[in-house]
């Protein structure tokens, strides 16, 4: 490895040491310019590494209401793959990424990817699909890094001993608890006596409401006065809005996402729901940032942005996020949301672990070696630093802030963003989320 200096005067060797020892890790952290345009990837290219490209598959939602999330994940994965290939690939191997619609065929998609000889697979968005996949992933032995599929109990209770299945994005407990902590931060525990929920009527919505309820009851001893579950993709939520208006709770919690989030806020505005509650908190409200109009965001609405908000840390302090923001705006004409980072981070987790494995082993790793390498693996993305823990769950900061409108961007933004470290909103290893919260 050479020890040249970048244009910024940073010693190349020091830069590589700081960012995990490889040019690839540096590029995926959004700091490729530190290498001063040198494409040499150092020791990673040496050793017994196949010549052919890495075959990767991603399943994500590309059509229908869930595409609000899924397409962002696709953009994120494509961006990460582009950066990897622009920087010489993983140990010299470029990645070829095939993307398919996940639909309801999660198992079949994974099986087909494996049958095609994919080296790694990414996705899905769906929590139910992810749950169905995990045992199959362990049977087939080809690593899958889920972009989302964030049901809390998956690795805590259902599959505590999985070998080949990983998940990058924060799981439900982290965002639902962040919402509860955010509500207490904003209003104060003594000011929250009652709360209500409007959540999508499927496992994710039930999971989120249950955890938020546990959290807000422990933090503020609040009482639930209404809980409604509109169907996913509902065309009317006015009944739930009316019920909230009649109860006038201090806090309204909603895990509605995509088009459902937009519809809920529109109908809430039309029925003055924001005047009948002190605060609305929604852990995935910022996922629909590209869909809102200015009028949808009036009133005390605080939205979560999972493990990535493009302006946190502030882009003038943290240039990787600023660069990523500009790149995505230019390439895809959208604001990158946390779901963009789901795709970007899943690819980055695997690629940086593979890169590290090659440098340690001096050859391309087997699937089980790479799976072991992914455990307790830490890496940077433009969102900051992430870890893939022993339980195969990714841990990153959780973001929450007030939804507002930016005339400059002509889109929704978050203001006064609070960042919650993983240990504030998720249990220590070996403890389930429910036990942990109930023990507060």
């Amino acid at each position, binding site marked *: 490895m050479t020890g040249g200096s970048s244009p910024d005067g940073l010693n190349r060797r020091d830069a590589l040491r700081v960012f995990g020892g490889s040019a690839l890790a540096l590029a995926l952290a959004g700091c490729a310019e530190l290498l001063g345009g040198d494409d040499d990837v150092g020791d990673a290219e040496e050793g017994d590494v196949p010549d052919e490209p890495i075959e990767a598959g991603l399943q994500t939602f590309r059509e229908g209401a869930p595409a609000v999330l899924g397409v962002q994940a696709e953009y994120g994965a494509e961006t990460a793959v582009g950066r990897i290939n622009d920087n010489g690939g993983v140990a010299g191997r470029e990645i070829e990424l*095939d993307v*398919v*619609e996940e*639909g*309801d*065929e999660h*198992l*079949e*998609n994974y*099986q*087909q990817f494996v*049958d*095609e000889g994919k080296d790694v697979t990414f996705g899905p968005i769906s*929590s*139910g*699909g992810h*749950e*169905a996949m995990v*045992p*199959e992933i362990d*049977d*087939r032995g080809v690593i899958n890094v889920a972009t989302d599929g964030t*049901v809390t109990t998956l690795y805590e209770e*259902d599959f505590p001993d999985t070998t080949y299945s990983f998940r990058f994005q924060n799981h439900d407990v982290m965002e639902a608890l962040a919402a509860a902590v955010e509500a207490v931060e904003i209003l104060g525990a003594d000011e929250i006596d009652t709360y209500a929920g409007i959540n999508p*009527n*499927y*496992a994710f919505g*039930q999971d989120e409401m249950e955890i938020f309820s546990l959290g807000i009851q422990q933090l503020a001893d609040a009482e639930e006065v209404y809980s409604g*579950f509109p169907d996913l993709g509902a065309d009317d939520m006015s009944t739930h809005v009316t019920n909230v208006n009649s109860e006038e709770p201090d806090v309204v919690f909603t895990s509605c996402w995509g088009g459902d989030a937009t519809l809920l806020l529109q109908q809430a505005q039309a029925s003055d729901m924001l005047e009948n509650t002190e605060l609305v908190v929604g852990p995935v409200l910022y996922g629909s940032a590209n869909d809102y109009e200015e009028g949808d965001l009036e009133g005390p609405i605080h939205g979560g942005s999972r493990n990535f908000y493009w302006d946190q840390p502030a882009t003038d302090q943290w240039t990787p996020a600023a660069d990523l923001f500009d790149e995505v705006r230019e390439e895809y004409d959208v604001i990158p949301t946390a779901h963009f980072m789901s795709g970007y981070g899943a690819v980055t987790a695997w690629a940086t672990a593979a890169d590290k494995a090659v440098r340690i082993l001096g050859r391309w790793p087997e699937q089980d070696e790479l799976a072991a390498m992914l455990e307790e693996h830490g890496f940077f993305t433009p969102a900051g630093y992430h870890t893939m823990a022993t339980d195969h769950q990714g841990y990153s900061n959780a973001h929450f802030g007030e939804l507002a409108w930016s005339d400059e961007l002509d889109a929704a933004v978050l203001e006064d963003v609070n960042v919650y470290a993983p240990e504030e909103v998720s249990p220590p290893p070996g403890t389930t989320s429910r036990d942990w919260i109930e023990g507060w």
Partner: protein
Amino acid sequence: MSRFTVDRDGETYVRPIEGLELTRRQAALGLVGLVLLLAVPDITRVTPLSFSIIHQGILFGLAAVGLNLLLRHTELVSFGHAAFFGAGAYGAAVLAHHYAVSSGLVLLVGGVLVATVVALVVGYLVAGYLDIYFALLTLAFNQVLFAFVLQSRYFNFNDGLAVRPEGTRPLLLGLELSPGAYSVILYYVTVAFLLVMLFAMWKIVNSPFGRALDAIGQDRTRARFIGIPVERYVWIAFTISGLYGGVAGGLFALLQLHVRPEPVLFVFVSGEILFMAILGGVGTLVGPVVGGVVLIYLLRLARFYVEYYHALTGIVLLVVVFLLPKGVLGSLPEIGDGLARRRREPGLLREDAGSVAESIRDGAGRAVSTVRIVVFGVK
């Protein structure tokens, strides 16, 4: 003459079992089909074909064979047959997930019982209805079941239930198997069920009961006048049909090892099962199985090769409806005869080309007229 052949009208027929007589061509095709069916695990090992998808296709095809009993004989269109497929799958899943039943056979029997009970109840309520009312009622019951499962914590909402008692695969034939062995053994269990149930269906449709169903399909009033208990027979046929769906669903649960509402209970799945029967050939016994394999392959894997895979499925349906109204399998004799005639008389190909050109010309002319009327009015 051996006991397996019979001469009639100067033609030799193969008679594998009493009452079933096949032309030599049909017997050869049947034998080839059986060999292919048994060789699927090996074929998929040396080709890019997907073993799991073919297995799934056969299972959905088995459900379509059950649906075809109603469609072909009583001429009733059910838009709710996913209810029985899903009931079979969930019956097995509940036993595995909530009661830790490890025997694959017990799980399957449980699923079939649940599906049969559901079919008995629904069949009793819809047996007296005809045409669109029957179709919409079956669809409504299907949706009620789907919504109930989707919103129930017991069924784990839309995340579904794992069919892994104590976290492991169910036992097959009393054996705890590796993933590869499990999938192959389960496939041959499916083949055994398929052959037995195809034979049972053949016996049913060729029995007096089957003839009575034909009579009901042709004219209910006349059937009633000759003493056929119409509603009761439709109810029985509906239940048998649901039982087929239950067997298919139970085996599907054992194959997938995880059951979620959308892939097994959503009303579109009912449409797909109906489409399989039409695609393979409503007028045939085995056609729905062929339709099942073809459609499942399209639905599951077309997305890997074609961007607009929904359109591809639609185009296949259009082609079948317009060009192969008897379905893929049902049209084979006509296609074979047509090809033989064209080999004998190549001039017919010119006529075909002329017919196609004329059709296109007529279609284009009508399109121009329509556009002219839309733009300029009738005058």
